[in-house]
């Protein structure tokens, strides 16, 4: 054993660079693996903890307007699968009524409302996950705003309407198990009972949420159906708890998912590199192994020697990876913990990574053993005469017109003959450019103005929402007439939005949001079919179409005001707003049933969208006015924040990876081509020539890797992004690439890094001497 350890130590010393590179690879994969699992563990614990403490509802039905309370109570009474129910009264207040630090909340997309603390379940929690209590004059602010606007305890929020002003002191930041995530479009502020009474007499509009908890084993779809059949109040959307959870998981889980995906790829790369290194060092050490065998070293001992070597490396990598994963994982789980707290299952973030690391070690060790065994099978004689073992590699020919660019010709020729040796490094280059580009491309896709088409509307500049007012129609008319007279506006169109009911594939009645307006003003690109024309056609969002099981040309029956309306499906479009379930049809909603009027408008060339927005905000105080690009950004803000985080990490990892692989590869390949280098020197190539040749070989491979990686990032990336967004309602995303970063800066950065690495890594060439060849 002592002898073995001694041999291992010598081996480490001899192959310093390779060993270090290998170690870094292993550490990186261990880190990513453990880090990803730590984030997963923290996230599961966190989300679970919040749901448990807050007792989140399993079914929520929104409703606006009056309702029969007794009938609702009766409904709850006769359905014994309902464990508990709750009517939450929410006072919807326009964003312009809120003032924080001198500014209204108009720039925020969320719908805001006041609630008091619930009784029984659906509690709003403070940052210690305790049921929060606010005193008079105090307000609890959703963690979303703490995050987005930096609101903190002690700040003052003013609500005002006309001459009425009320100052509320922020007492706590609150966690809301149902409306926490950026993907949920409403946010609840917590105030005291008496403040609620006071404020509601000056502003706002009541909205009710009927919330239910079910007994074990009962399904929400049964409840939804019974509820609808009983004709319970339902002027609004019904949401199941699972959708809420999905939304949460999606916005928090994305990072964990991406990190784990990266770590899996990294592990594959590590194993590839490992097997490459083992093979390379083995072939270098064939003679040594042969000698060991010849002097009677048993095979088992030789195998052990290598296994000890890799086990030591692996153990070190595991320890470092696991420890480094603690700050790494905590950094990436900080957002979910801020939103949801640490939860009760904190053991998960310690145990998950541990199991992951053990699995990783097993995979690597087994792979090592397999490769070593295979190599040891060769006989002593074969090992000693390794030269003859190497198969003929094939020749390249010299151009008959002479060597105009000698280094280029030689480098390409050698590449042609030895391309097999470059497969691993090529894959790493593909992977790293993919890794770098994917988040970049996602970001540029979302930031591109045409991304709005995935939100079910054609490209436009500004969006105005008119809602929460007793006199919606009057307000709408005021807005339209103002816009008509504004000479800086190129075109505008108004859309009426309301709800109708439709039966899904399971026969359950569901509310779908229908938009009615002139679809030709801001034309939308349809996945299939086209925009509805006339009063008999309806276009469905992708998610709606698949849920209702409808194709273009099918007929669809919807219920509105008790009557059946029959439409033909004219087209299917992508939409990630409103849970992805929307439709477009000319349904003449009753004034009272209009949920919201939305105006889209384009400003004329040369008019600043930001200025116009500000101007409209001062004039049209009733509407919520948002520049469309901000609308997109805010809808996806949760994802994009995470994406920026991931983007930075991805760039660092990708660059680190290519530096490592280049160093390692150069080390191996120069050692392997020792004799070729020496010969080249003898026949008159300078050190510089030889280094240039290595550079060309690697950069050519890298260039191809980048091209392939870029293609992947655009095509496969679109698929991945589509998958990520499919739960929200998009199905086919075309990556909108920013050519400057994607095709110029990114490749340039990678090539530059490798270029520098090659300069440093080929310095060793100068030491190679024909003498060492002859002495062998």
């Amino acid at each position, binding site marked *: 054993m002592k002898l073995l350890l001694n041999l291992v130590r010598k081996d480490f010393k001899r192959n310093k660079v390779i060993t270090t590179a290998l170690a870094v690879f292993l550490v990186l994969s261990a880190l990513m693996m453990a880090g990803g699992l730590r984030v997963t563990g923290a996230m599961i614990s966190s989300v679970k903890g919040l749901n448990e403490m807050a007792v989140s509802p399993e079914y929520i039905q929104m409703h606006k307007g009056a309702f029969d309370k007794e009938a609702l109570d009766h409904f709850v009474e006769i359905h014994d699968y309902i464990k508990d129910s709750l009517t939450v009264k929410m006072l919807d207040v326009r964003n312009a009524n809120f003032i924080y630090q001198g500014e209204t909340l108009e720039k925020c997309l969320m719908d805001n409302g006041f609630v008091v603390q619930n009784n029984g379940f659906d509690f709003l929690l403070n940052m210690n996950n305790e049921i929060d209590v606010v005193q008079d004059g105090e307000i609890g602010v959703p963690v979303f705003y703490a995050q987005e606007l930096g609101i903190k305890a002690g700040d003052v929020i003013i609500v005002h309407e006309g001459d009425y002003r009320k100052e509320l002191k922020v007492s706590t930041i609150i966690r809301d198990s149902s409306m926490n995530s950026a993907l949920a479009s409403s946010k609840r502020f917590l105030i005291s009972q008496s403040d609620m009474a006071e404020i509601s007499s000056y502003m706002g509009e009541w909205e009710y949420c009927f919330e239910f908890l079910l007994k074990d084993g009962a399904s929400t779809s049964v409840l939804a159906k019974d509820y609808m059949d009983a004709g319970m109040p339902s002027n609004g959307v019904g949401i199941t708890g699972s959708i809420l959870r999905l939304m949460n998981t999606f916005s928090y889980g994305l990072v964990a998912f991406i990190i784990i995906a990266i770590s899996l790829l990294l592990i594959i790369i590590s194993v590839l590199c490992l097997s490459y290194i083992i093979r390379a060092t083995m072939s270098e050490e064939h003679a040594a192994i042969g000698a060991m065998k010849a002097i009677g070293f048993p095979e088992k001992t030789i195998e052990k020697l290598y296994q000890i070597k890799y086990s030591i490396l692996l153990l070190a990598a595991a320890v470092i990876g696991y420890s480094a994963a603690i700050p790494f994982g905590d950094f990436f789980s900080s957002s979910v913990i801020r939103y949801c707290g640490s939860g009760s299952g904190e053991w998960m973030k310690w145990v998950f990574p541990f199991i992951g690391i053990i699995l990783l070690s097993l995979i690597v060790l087994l792979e090592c053993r397999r490769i070593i065994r295979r190599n040891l099978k060769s006989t002593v004689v074969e090992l000693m005469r390794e030269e003859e073992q190497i198969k003929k590699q094939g*020749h390249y020919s*010299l151009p008959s*017109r002479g*060597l105009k660019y000698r280094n280029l010709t030689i480098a390409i020729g050698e590449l042609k003959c030895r391309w097999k040796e470059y497969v691993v490094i090529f894959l790493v280059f593909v992977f790293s450019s993919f890794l770098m580009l994917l988040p970049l491309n996602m970001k540029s896709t979302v930031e591109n103005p045409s991304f709005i088409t995935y939100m079910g509307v054609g490209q436009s500049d500004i969006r105005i929402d008119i809602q929460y007012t007793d006199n919606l129609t009057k307000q709408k008319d005021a807005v339209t007439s103002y816009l008509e007279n504004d000479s800086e506006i190129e075109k505008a169109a108004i859309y009426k939005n309301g709800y109708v009911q439709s039966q899904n594939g399971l026969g359950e009645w569901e509310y779908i949001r229908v938009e009615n307006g002139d679809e030709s003003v801001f034309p939308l690109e349809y996945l299939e079919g086209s925009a509805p024309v006339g009063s008999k056609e309806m276009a469905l969002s992708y998610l709606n179409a698949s849920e209702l099981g409808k194709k273009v040309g099918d007929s669809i029956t919807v219920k509105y005001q008790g009557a059946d309306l029959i439409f033909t499906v004219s087209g299917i479009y992508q939409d990630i707003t409103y849970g992805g379930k929307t439709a477009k049809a000319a349904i003449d909603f009753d004034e009272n049933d209009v949920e919201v009027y939305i105006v889209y408008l384009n400003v004329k060339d040369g008019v600043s969208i930001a200025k116009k927005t500000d101007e409209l905000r001062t004039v049209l105080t009733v509407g919520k006015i948002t520049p469309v690009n901000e609308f997109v950004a805010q809808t996806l803000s949760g994802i994009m924040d995470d994406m920026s985080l991931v983007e930075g990490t991805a760039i660092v990892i990708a660059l680190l990876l290519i530096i490592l692989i280049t160093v390692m590869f150069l080390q191996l390949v120069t050692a392997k081509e020792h004799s070729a280098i020496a*010969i080249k020197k*003898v*026949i*008159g190539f300078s050190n510089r020539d030889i280094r240039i040749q290595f550079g060309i070989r690697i950069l050519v491979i890298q260039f191809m890797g980048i091209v392939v990686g870029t293609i992947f990032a655009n095509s496969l990336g679109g698929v991945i992004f589509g998958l990520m967004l499919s739960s929200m309602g998009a199905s086919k995303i075309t990556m909108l690439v920013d050519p400057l970063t994607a095709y110029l800066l990114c490749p340039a950065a990678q090539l530059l890094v490798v270029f520098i690495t090659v300069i440093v890594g080929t310095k060793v060439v100068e030491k190679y001497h*024909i003498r060492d060849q*002859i002495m062998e």
Partner: protein
Amino acid sequence: MIKVEQISKSFNNLEILNNVSFEIKRGDFVGVMGPSGSGKSTLLYSISQMDSVSGGRILFEGRNLSEMPEVELSEFRLTKMGFVFQNAQMLKNLSIFNNIILPGLIAKKETVHIIRERASKLMKRMEIEGLEERDVREVSGGQLQRASICRAMINNPEILFLDEPTGALNSAATDQVLAILEDLNHEGMTIMTVTHEPRVAAKAKKVLYIQDGQIAACKEFLTVTDHERELDKWLMELTH
């Protein structure tokens, strides 16, 4: 042509060459002998500047090689020097023929046509025609050694350096190589060869005997014919 002035060379503070001076004239055939480890190869590498020297000067046609930048040196090696080593080394991804013409193509002094012609002529002369497209590993040691002489000659160098050119060859192959060297020297080629075989050194006009990093003795032969016996006697005296 080459003037070596007081060169010294040490590895890890160990003096291998110690103030060695001598001169090679155009058309010379210099043999270098000496015990193993005495610094023969090191001397050869130092003269061609594949090893840097720790002291002294090497003047090649009046130019000081030890102060020449590396790129220029490699150009020098390419066009003015030819090298042959014990284990003939060639690039494995090129055919024999391409290995031979490669230095010619890099030098770009002459047209591809002329280089190819010369390569064919050289191969014919070395009696290895027909092996042009073979892989380096598909020919015998003697054939490969003759092919490397072809490669060394492709740019019409001014001097040919050889280090144990027959070390890995059997007697018949050694004879072939020796005959070629003799011929080349007759035609005016300057040759310097390191060897431990008196049979090889006997072809030289001048033999340097290296010991302890210095030229222990030097012998010039006046007649050009067989002086193997004469050399043997000299060596006997030296080693006892």
